[in-house]
């Protein structure tokens, strides 16, 4: 399918099988549509301290990564991204495909006064290998010295191993690596991984995995008209130290001080239907909201979603699903961690009761 101008597979076979492969073993995704941009210059850290809502002062050790929003002056989210501290004069950003042009223009506009040069790395492809067995599969393909360094990589760190930048990050809720590598090496690595039993996985599985893991999707769960506090992303905003001014800080403080009017919650649907973006949500006696992301959770065997609702919303809501008002439970994401369901489902409860009875 056409995904923001990139021709990408939704699935190679069954997207549900691909999902289970990642939760139980390992899968590989082509995420080369993501934009890698290296920022160069001795004042790069200062620039990022101003541009990002999370604080790059947290990046003290080389290779450490940080997930952050980049805000506009109204505290709307321009994008969410990961920034890697490579060297004091070089930080790497990975931003979304659909927002690449706007992001790079925004960064370049702010970079000038700091003397920072932005280098878009169109020479790199990116593969994500994810699942409990993912790292072992990648390590097995590396020469011994590189294998040891890859094996030792802590969570949310990256390291340059010859041509490959290997980062212990991902968008599935499982352990694994994201590998940024020269374009010509991507297909051969893919084939080697397949040969070792790593399943090819497409966009369909990518979406069900990230939603189970409670991870936001830019464009659905937040955009330039929503702020992080109403998008489940308060944890990514560093208000301390109070002396650090960042773009959007003043607007965001105003929202924080007044108390955000809306919040992003998780929903679990116990009925035989699927939550989908834009369905209307009713919080009884409180007001309306909207589903921002919805899908069928293969791990839970029911539909899950994220929704932006009035802040005072309680434990249950009703969702208008194709003309019927269905009850949904409000939960705190994630829905799944380490392959296990964190939220109970009626199906699980009835089968447990059946087994016990």
């Amino acid at each position: 399918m056409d995904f923001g101008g990139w021709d990408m597979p939704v699935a190679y076979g069954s997207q549900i099988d691909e999902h289970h492969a990642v939760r139980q073993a390992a899968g590989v995704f082509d995420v080369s549509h993501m934009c890698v941009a290296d920022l160069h210059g001795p004042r790069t850290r200062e620039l990022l301290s101003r541009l990002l809502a999370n604080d790059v002062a947290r990046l003290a050790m080389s290779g450490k990564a940080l997930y952050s929003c980049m805000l506009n002056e109204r505290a709307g989210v321009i994008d969410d991204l990961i920034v890697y501290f490579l060297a004091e004069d070089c930080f790497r950003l990975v931003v979304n495909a659909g927002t690449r042009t706007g992001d790079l223009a925004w960064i370049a506009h702010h970079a000038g006064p700091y003397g920072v040069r932005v280098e878009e790395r169109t020479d790199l492809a990116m593969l994500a290998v994810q699942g409990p067995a993912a790292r072992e599969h990648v390590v097995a393909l590396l020469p011994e010295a590189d294998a040891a360094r890859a094996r030792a990589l802590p969570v949310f760190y990256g390291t340059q191993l010859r041509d490959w930048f290997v980062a212990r990050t991902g968008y599935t809720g499982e352990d694994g690596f994201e590998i940024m590598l020269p374009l010509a090496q991507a297909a051969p690595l893919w084939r080697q991984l397949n040969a070792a039993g790593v399943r090819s996985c497409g966009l369909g599985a990518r979406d069900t995995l990230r939603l189970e893991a409670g991870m936001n999707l830019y464009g659905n769960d937040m955009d330039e008209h929503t702020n992080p506090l109403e998008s489940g992303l308060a944890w990514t905003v560093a208000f301390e130290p109070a002396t650090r001014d960042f773009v959007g800080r003043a607007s965001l403080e105003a929202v924080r001080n007044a108390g955000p009017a809306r919040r992003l919650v998780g929903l679990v649907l116990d009925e035989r239907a699927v939550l989908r973006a834009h369905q209307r949500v009713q919080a009884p006696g409180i007001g309306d909201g909207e589903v921002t992301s919805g899908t069928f959770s293969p791990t839970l065997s029911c539909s899950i979603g994220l929704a932006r609702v009035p802040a005072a919303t309680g434990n249950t809501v009703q969702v208008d699903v194709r003309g019927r008002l269905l009850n949904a439970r409000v939960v705190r994401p994630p829905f799944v961690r380490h392959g296990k369901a964190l939220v109970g489902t009626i199906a699980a409860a009835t089968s447990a009761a059946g087994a016990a009875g």
Partner: protein
Amino acid sequence: MSNIPGDLQYTRSHEWVRALADGTVEVGISDHAQAALGDLVFVELPEPGRALKAGEACAVVESVKAASDVYAPIAGTVVTVNEQLAQSPELVNSDPYGGGWMMRLRPAAGALEGLLSAQAYAAVTAGA
């Protein structure tokens, strides 16, 4: 190339019809349809006893991607539905013409006119 068994009849909306020895017909959706839908997660089937007009929306298949209506290929009455699809909707994907059957209808008089042969349906899907 999707699988289109020669011994069945079809509709433009991707349902198939199999005539059974007892005069009823068995109905499901084609291989082309299941591939386009992706993994099914829910199937809603009509109540036995319900009378259907040809072309009437009578069932819903919901995949991870989207929900779609299934249309009665002929006028008739629902005799029985495939109860297995409640637990195993994926049968429609893995075995659309066998284990993935959806319902059996007793056709109204003259109802079997107007269905497509396998060849004609192949032409429809080739154009799709």
